[in-house]
């Protein structure tokens, strides 16, 4: 640890710990409002169809049914980017698309009413493959999007929002190259981030144009600022509940939100819409499909001379954030691959499977997982050690890159070579790495392989955070920041930072509920921005309040404010803690002091981590067992040790590392149905399958943050999938390129069962 702090860097119990372990923490489905109704959704059995008739009269006649909505009477609100997805439409575009909504006095009654809605469909041909969808004769999903191409002319991050990377001259770059990697790889097993808690929203109209929503989310204000323009500009008060995991997906629960709000408007009562697990699998956010066809040129020494290709991104029926994910993904690729010549272009395509949403990795994981196998082909030809390659090519201070807004930034972060070296040592990479397509060890039918991946993100300082910090005369402190708790402990870490600035017991620091009415603006808990962006806002607010406190105390202590100190609710002249006065004397019993802080975006400080994997392939059964994971990173200063450990362990969950081993959403292209939309058929890692996991966390102070810290949590899933492909390729002695590497694919590669081996 670089500096001794009172709280920073030390484990303190989560503020909500007792609530959680006693079952008192209130998640969305634990909440009831007076006169609340329950909303249910009738869903399409067809992947693509016109609704030719719909009869709701029988459902409406059931006592206890308070609202029934179809495309004929649903509000004309729209989501999707650009906005094109109606709350309910006369056409359905995926199996599970919403056809009708019902609100009733009980869940059972709402579900029963769905059976009494009679719908007739005219089925239409459907398309699922990203490249088939853009052929001229393909079925068309939206009239507004000819060729199923979703336009980019939506300035999510301003007029120059990144939609590819074009830089230098790739032809020249390829001429300079000694080795070229080429091919097409797809990260299209559309895994589910699958937080344990399904998405849910409660909506209540308090006046005709005033809506209050409670939701399970990681970014509370999105349900205000994103939804207001989509719904004809009502005033929305967004309140976050305890959130049972999100991993990006519940940043924004557009569909449950609109369904609850529409039903609540019609019924004139609060309505709760909580998806079932089946709906969570079949009608909520999946990871974007990603296919990259391209070419990478490198020199013998590992210098990258050119990257070119076409990135096909498949949203399924729609998405709200794909253009943003593409922008960030293109930015992140440049952080990982220092190169002067780029020509990467993107096609954003809609198809007839359920929609994509935000998933941890936010475009970067999707691009990396399809692009890196091509890079590795070049590395293998050059016989380069991938660790050395990534070390050489990760962005260094002074290097430039285009970030999501299309602006050029010069890196003023750090050189992460030390973290890489420490990771190499902890993993034993030099001992285990035997060269490309060579196993680390072979014993009978078992082969051991190792692989490595890196990831980094300049979103740690994205967007705006604001906060108030209020000092109360009883020495307690209240933070007002619109920050949710989806599991990363950020609310508690902010309390810790404020306790540190004000030098008061952390037990006395409370953070107000995540409610847009009572807190200033915060963009949300994403992109590892909690520490740098939110942290800096809260720290500034605490410093502002502290300054006012010392100014008010100065005349009482007959000293200048800068000569004063505060500790444990006392103010004193530096060096004279015995002659202090308490806050209540400075403030008076009926006054408080409020400080304000704001963080403005800063995209010049990328974070980083490297992930090493060791696994065992059984050549008899084809099974891949993950044995060991080592993550190395440098975070400047740890804020809360168990929180960061947990975030890094998260590499195994949330559509991360296991998307290369067994996680996949299986879509039957004959029917458009997902075949595994339940937690038995969708494979997940159990306690008995835990690999050894070791985190190497360096703390080299970074000057951009008061406590010298940079956030890293979000990126731990991203390097895993391509690292696993590398490790299995090394174990079996053959390039493996088809996510996930289930036993059938491994046995095919080994020539033990017939089939086409995809390299």
């Amino acid at each position, binding site marked *: 640890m670089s500096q001794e702090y009172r709280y920073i860097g030390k484990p303190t119990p989560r503020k909500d710990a007792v609530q959680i372990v006693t*079952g008192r923490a209130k998640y969305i489905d*634990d909440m009831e409002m007076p006169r609340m109704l329950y909303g249910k959704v009738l869903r399409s059995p067809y992947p693509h169809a016109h609704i030719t008739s719909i009869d709701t009269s029988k459902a409406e006649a059931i006592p206890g049914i308070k609202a029934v909505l179809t495309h004929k009477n649903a509000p004309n609100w729209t989501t999707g980017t650009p906005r094109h997805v109606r709350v309910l439409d006369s056409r359905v575009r995926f199996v599970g698309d919403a056809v009708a909504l019902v609100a009733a006095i009980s869940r059972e009654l709402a579900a029963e009413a769905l059976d009494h809605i009679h719908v007739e469909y005219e089925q239409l041909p459907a398309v699922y493959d990203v490249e088939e969808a853009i052929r001229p004769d393909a079925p068309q999903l939206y009239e507004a999007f000819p060729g199923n191409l979703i336009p980019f002319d939506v300035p999510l991050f301003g007029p120059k929002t990144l939609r590819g990377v074009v830089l230098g001259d790739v032809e020249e770059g390829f001429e300079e190259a000694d080795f070229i990697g080429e091919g097409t790889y797809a990260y299209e097993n559309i895994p589910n981030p699958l*937080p*344990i808690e399904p998405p849910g929203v409660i909506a209540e109209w308090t006046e005709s144009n005033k809506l209050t929503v409670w939701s399970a989310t990681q970014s509370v204000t999105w349900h205000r600022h994103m939804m207001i323009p989509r719904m004809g500009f009502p005033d929305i008060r967004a309140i976050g509940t305890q959130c*049972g995991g999100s991993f990006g997906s519940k940043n924004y629960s557009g569909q449950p939100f609109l369904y609850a709000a529409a039903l609540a408007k019609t019924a004139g009562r609060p309505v709760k819409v909580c998806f079932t697990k089946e709906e969570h699998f079949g009608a909520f956010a999946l990871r974007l499909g990603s296919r990259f066809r391209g070419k990478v040129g490198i020199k013998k020494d590992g210098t990258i001379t050119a990257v070119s290709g076409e990135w096909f991104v498949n949203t399924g029926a729609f998405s709200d954030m794909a253009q943003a994910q593409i922008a960030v993904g293109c930015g992140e690729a440049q952080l990982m691959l220092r190169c002067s010549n780029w020509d990467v272009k993107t096609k954003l395509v809609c198809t007839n499977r359920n929609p994509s949403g935000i998933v941890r990795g936010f475009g970067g994981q999707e691009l990396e997982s399809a692009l890196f196998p091509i890079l590795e082909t070049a590395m293998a030809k050059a016989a380069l050690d991938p660790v050395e390659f990534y070390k050489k090519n990760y962005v260094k201070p002074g290097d430039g890159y285009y970030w999501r807004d299309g602006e050029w930034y010069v890196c003023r972060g750090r050189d992460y070579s030390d973290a890489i070296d420490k990771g190499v040592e902890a993993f034993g990479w030099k001992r285990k790495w035997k060269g490309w397509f060579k196993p680390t060890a072979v014993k009978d039918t078992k082969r051991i392989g190792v692989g490595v991946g890196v990831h980094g993100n300049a979103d740690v300082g994205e967007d705006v955070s604001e906060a108030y910090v209020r000092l109360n005369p009883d020495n307690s402190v209240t933070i007002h920041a619109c920050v949710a708790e989806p*599991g990363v402990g950020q609310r508690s870490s902010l309390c810790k930072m404020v306790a540190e600035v004000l030098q008061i017991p952390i037990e006395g620091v409370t953070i107000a509920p995540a409610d847009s009415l009572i807190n200033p603006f915060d963009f949300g808990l994403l992109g590892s921005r909690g520490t740098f962006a939110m942290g800096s806002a809260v720290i500034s607010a605490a410093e502002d309040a502290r300054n006012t406190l010392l100014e008010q105390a100065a005349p009482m202590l007959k000293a200048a404010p800068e000569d004063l100190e505060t500790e444990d609710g006392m103010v004193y002249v530096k060096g004279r803690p015995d002659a202090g006065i308490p806050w209540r004397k400075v403030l008076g019993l009926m006054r408080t002091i409020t400080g304000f802080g704001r963080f403005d975006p800063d995209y010049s400080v990328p974070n980083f981590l490297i992930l090493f994997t060791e696994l065992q392939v059984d050549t008899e059964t084809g099974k891949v067992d993950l044995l060991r994971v080592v993550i190395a990173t440098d975070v400047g200063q740890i804020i809360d040790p168990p929180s960061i450990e947990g975030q890094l362990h998260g590499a*195994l969950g*949330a559509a991360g590392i296991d998307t290369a081993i067994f996680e996949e959403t299986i879509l039957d292209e004959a029917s458009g149905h997902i075949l595994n939309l339940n*937690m038995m058929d969708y494979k997940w890692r159990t306690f008995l399958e835990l690999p050894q996991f070791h985190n190497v966390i360096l703390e080299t102070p970074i000057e951009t943050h008061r406590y010298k810290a940079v956030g890293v949590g979000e990126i731990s899933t991203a390097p895993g999938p391509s690292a696993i492909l590398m490790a299995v390729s090394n174990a079996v002695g053959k390039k493996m390129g088809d996510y996930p590497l289930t036993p059938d694919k491994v046995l095919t590669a080994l020539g033990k069962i017939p089939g086409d081996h995809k390299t």
Partner: protein
Amino acid sequence: MNKERDIESNTINLIVNGENTPLIVGDQVSGLLPSHTLAYTLRETLGLTGTKVGCDHGACGSCTVLVDGKPILSCMTLTIECDERRITTIEGLGEPEIGQLDPLQQAFIDHAAFQCGFCTPGMILASKALLDNNPPPREKQVKEALSGHFCRCISHYHVVDAVLKAAKREE
């Protein structure tokens, strides 16, 4: 116990966290329907929302409660099967009136053995059954006991530490 009484009076009695809790079968408000799962009754009828429903299909373990000391999936158990059974939910651990936590709950706090916390009540109850009914477990036994519990945040490592620590404390 008294089957005749049940049929005549149409009530069943759950002993929830030590308290007799009679439920009347029928479709009146707060009535017990034969289709109600124990998870539904606990959460929706009795307001004990500490029991979480993740998948509602018996696959994720988050709805685990103890019935006569054994961990069961309350989303796969019909309430009418639980007449006169002793049911322990997360609300029944420790001595909440005086703010006293069960050693397992304290160990989960001390080891930061949760992130989002949604799977935590189920994991604590499954661990409780393991510690109550067996000699102090080894790591492998803890993992076996919790192998049906889904945690997407990946708090598994901290959970194993917490349970092993609580087991030592109880020795």
